[in-house]
């Protein structure tokens, strides 16, 4: 059956109830597989017009450290979701192989590597922040970090900046 609308049926792209929605994502892991959830969700939120802030802390610093950001790794060790014997993960070269495989799978579906993904997030209007304590612990300064990181800030500054935001800890 065909129904005909009298008023034009147009999708609502207005903010509506979500007006001023904000998302804060805390990235605390430096493994390749744990870098992506935050990046993908940030990218999705930005595409929906949601103001998005990412805070990199502890091992998550590897995602914005110029020396490591392009070289995150995936290990089978301690990850039962590979459904392979745990002992295999400890064999020399296995982490490199698993990393290579995962990077290939990610590339095959057109998802960028971490540095390019961060650039896409920034180009979409996302904000990147580095954790002060992690920088101090690792003796790193702004110059050591990805250029698009806006500043090294304290945890309380981040909480202040993301007032009213929904928060994800990864």
């Amino acid at each position, binding site marked *: *059956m*065909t*129904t*005909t*609308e009298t008023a*034009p*049926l*147009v*999708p609502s*792209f207005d*903010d509506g109830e979500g007006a001023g929605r904000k998302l804060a994502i805390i990235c605390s892991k430096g493994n390749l597989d744990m870098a992506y959830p935050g990046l*993908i969700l940030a*990218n*999705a939120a930005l*595409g*929906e*017009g949601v103001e998005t802030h990412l805070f990199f802390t502890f091992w998550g610093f590897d995602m914005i450290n110029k020396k490591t950001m392009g070289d995150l790794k995936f290990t089978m060790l301690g990850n039962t979701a590979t459904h392979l014997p745990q002992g295999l993960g400890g064999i020399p070269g296995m982490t490199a192989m698993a990393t290579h495989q995962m990077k290939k799978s990610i590339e095959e*579906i*057109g*998802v*960028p590597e971490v540095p390019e993904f961060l650039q*896409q997030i920034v*180009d*979409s*209007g996302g904000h990147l922040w580095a954790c002060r304590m992690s920088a101090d612990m690792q003796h790193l300064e702004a110059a050591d970090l990805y250029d698009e990181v806006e500043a090294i800030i304290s945890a309380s500054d981040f909480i202040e900046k993301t007032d009213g935001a929904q928060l994800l800890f990864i």
Partner: protein
Amino acid sequence: MVTTTIDTHQIHVDDEGFMTRYDEWTEDLGTALAAQIGVEMSEEHWKAIRFLRDDFPERGETATLRRVATVGGIPTKQLFALFPKKPAKKMAYIAGLPKPRGCV
């Protein structure tokens, strides 16, 4: 099945208002759809919309924002400027295509 009338064009749409028939679309209609969501079409807008239209039959799905940027050659920043807030969905709507299904 739902039809709606946009600026004298009668079209088939889904529950939200996205067009469901690729061949019902024309550039005139694209301009009318854009006007419905507050977008005034410029040559820059058309470049993105034409890329989406050309890409769809080949791929069988609507290009994601990333694909418009990397394959279509229109920088992400510019897409956000042309189609503010929700560029992927707005582009799909104007191009008479379904919403993109890809995550990135």
